[in-house]
């Protein structure tokens, strides 16, 4: 029992409720939401420290022992993800101060922002399948509001598609929960794992496993990502940074959790499906990243490639690959938020998102240019930077388990990522200066500071890989040995 576990949920929830009453006091709203994120980050840091020193932490809601009540579980993976979520969320919040516009801020922008964090943190911490569904819905409903807030034609059009696809996947989620409850009769994840092991994962349980795979793939953009490039390019940069960094990662987390804790008994079927879906995702995402000459589309397809890459690591089921998955997941949350923010800055400065119409910005904005360059290298996985260790571990795991073709595709994807991002860098920052008479070339300090903050975290993650690896390896250990999780939850 550890009451600290509920704070990453409770603090943003209370803040969101208070912010509803402060509709017109914008500076007060900003202060309160910043304070709340600092508090959440502090509690998340404490949770990571406790998991590191005392092992997996659990919280039984209302004192009901599992499997009867709802339980919150923080193993190393969940604790790290909550910490990184809060940090990335904080920088997206600072970035949105200057950029989302007063009109949005007046219409409950910060309230929705906090509710989104409630949903994301809840999804990471919960140990109950139906509670995961509820947290997903909290997150999704706030994301609908954040996408459509502002109400331009483009936003309305893309939100219609986004909401439809998510209603469909939520419906399938409830159906999958119903089937699973019908077969094994429990909803607690640790208890589910035991009962699935007892019943033997064959026949109907494999079908249910694949249904869960479809549901979470729709959320994560694994192979079923057709909705993603359109809907992530309509909201303001601060919001799409939040989405690109967090939403698909929650789907990936759910995939990782279900297929390492509950449905890990028949990897020949489930994990090879994930592997081929991952390969297809990488290849299709790579086509998209090369094909478009629009800043937002290039970044969106880079999100897709990463999802495929992480799912490939999950499908390998080796300790090294699992460490790589955790490491790359943490790195990518920071790096993608960074990339979306830089993309937003470029569009803000040039006033266009077409690569053809920009150029020569390095003279006016050297800091921004070199930050973009180094971020591109980090995402591609160049050694001293943070993307390297995760990619190395995943590829090493893939080779150990003889997935040569898939590993080849994963390695090739790094070149494509590098090409697409460097092309973005070259066309925006090199060459002749165009649009020099653009009035919008002034960047406020706040915008650069939020990008700079994420940049420093990314660099530190790369330079301190050894230190990060120690905690990541603990998370990988729990994922590879589900008994540790089950014992921590069911035996007090």
């Amino acid at each position, binding site marked *: 029992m550890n009451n600290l576990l509920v704070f990453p949920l409770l603090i943003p929830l209370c803040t969101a409720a208070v912010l509803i009453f402060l509709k017109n006091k914008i500076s007060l709203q900003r202060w309160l939401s910043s304070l709340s994120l600092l508090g959440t980050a502090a509690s998340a840091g404490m949770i990571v420290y406790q998991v590191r020193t005392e092992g997996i932490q659990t919280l039984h809601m209302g004192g009901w022992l599992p499997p009867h009540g709802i339980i919150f579980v923080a193993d190393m993976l969940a604790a790290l993800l909550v910490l990184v979520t809060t940090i990335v969320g904080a920088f997206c919040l600072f970035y949105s101060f200057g950029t989302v516009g007063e009109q949005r801020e007046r219409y409950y922008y910060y309230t929705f922002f906090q509710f989104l964090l409630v949903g994301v943190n809840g999804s990471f911490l919960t140990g109950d399948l139906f509670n995961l*569904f*509820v947290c997903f*819905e909290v997150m999704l409903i706030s994301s609908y509001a954040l996408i459509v807030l502002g*109400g331009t*034609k483009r936003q*309305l059009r893309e939100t219609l598609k986004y909401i*439809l696809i998510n209603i469909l996947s939520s419906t399938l989620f409830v159906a999958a929960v119903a089937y699973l*409850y019908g077969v094994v009769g429990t909803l607690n994840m640790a208890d589910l794992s035991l009962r699935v092991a007892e019943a033997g994962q064959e026949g109907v349980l494999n079908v249910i496993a694949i249904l869960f795979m479809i549901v979470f793939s729709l959320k994560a953009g694994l192979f079923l990502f057709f909705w993603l490039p359109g809907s992530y390019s309509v909201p303001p940069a601060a919001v799409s940074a939040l989405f690109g960094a967090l939403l698909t990662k929650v789907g990936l987390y759910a995939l990782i959790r279900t297929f390492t804790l509950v449905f890990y008994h028949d990897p020949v079927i489930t994990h090879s499906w994930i592997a081929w879906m991952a390969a297809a995702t990488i290849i299709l995402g790579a086509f998209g990243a090369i094909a478009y000459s629009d800043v937002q589309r290039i970044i969106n397809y880079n999100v897709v490639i990463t999802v495929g890459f992480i799912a490939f690591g999950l499908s390998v089921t080796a300790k090294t690959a699992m460490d790589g998955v955790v490491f790359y997941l943490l790195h990518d949350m920071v790096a993608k938020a960074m990339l979306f923010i830089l993309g937003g800055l470029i569009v803000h400065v040039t006033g266009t998102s077409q690569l053809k119409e920009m150029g020569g910005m390095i003279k006016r904005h050297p800091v921004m240019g070199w930050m973009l360059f180094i971020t591109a290298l980090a995402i591609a996985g160049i050694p001293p930077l943070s993307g390297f260790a995760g990619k190395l571990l995943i590829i090493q795991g893939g080779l150990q388990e003889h997935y040569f073709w898939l590993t080849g595709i994963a390695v090739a994807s790094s070149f494509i990522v590098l090409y697409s991002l460097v092309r973005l860098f070259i066309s925006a920052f090199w060459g002749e200066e165009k649009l020099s008479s653009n009035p919008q070339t002034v960047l406020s300090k706040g915008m650069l500071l939020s990008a700079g903050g994420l940049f420093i975290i990314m660099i530190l993650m790369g330079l301190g890989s050894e230190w990060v690896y120690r905690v990541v390896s603990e998370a990988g250990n729990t994922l590879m040995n589900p008994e540790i999780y089950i014992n921590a939850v069911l035996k007090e």
Partner: protein
Amino acid sequence: MELYMSLAIGALFTVGVYLLLSKSLLRIILGTSLLTHGVHLLLLTMSRLKTGAAPLLGQKAESYVDPLPQALILTSIVISFGVTSFFFVLAYKAYQKLGTDDMEELRGKEDE
């Protein structure tokens, strides 16, 4: 009894998916609500439709029906109610601004 319920749920899913694939936005929303009806009935059916008293301890019955799926359905109903009402308002707003409810005309990447 479960067999008849399964057939009915199957019919709801079929009609829901058919409506989801149509052009008109209102039909699509009706499709989503049929799908959620189907999935709530599925949740009820999957807990076995054994006869028993309503889950109230005051009934002092020999056996009760399973209370857990009822709680799950109640949660899911209010969630889908919230989402559906948001979807309806979004469709209304989209009709006002975009001037069409034909999903075919909402394709494309052009940015106004």
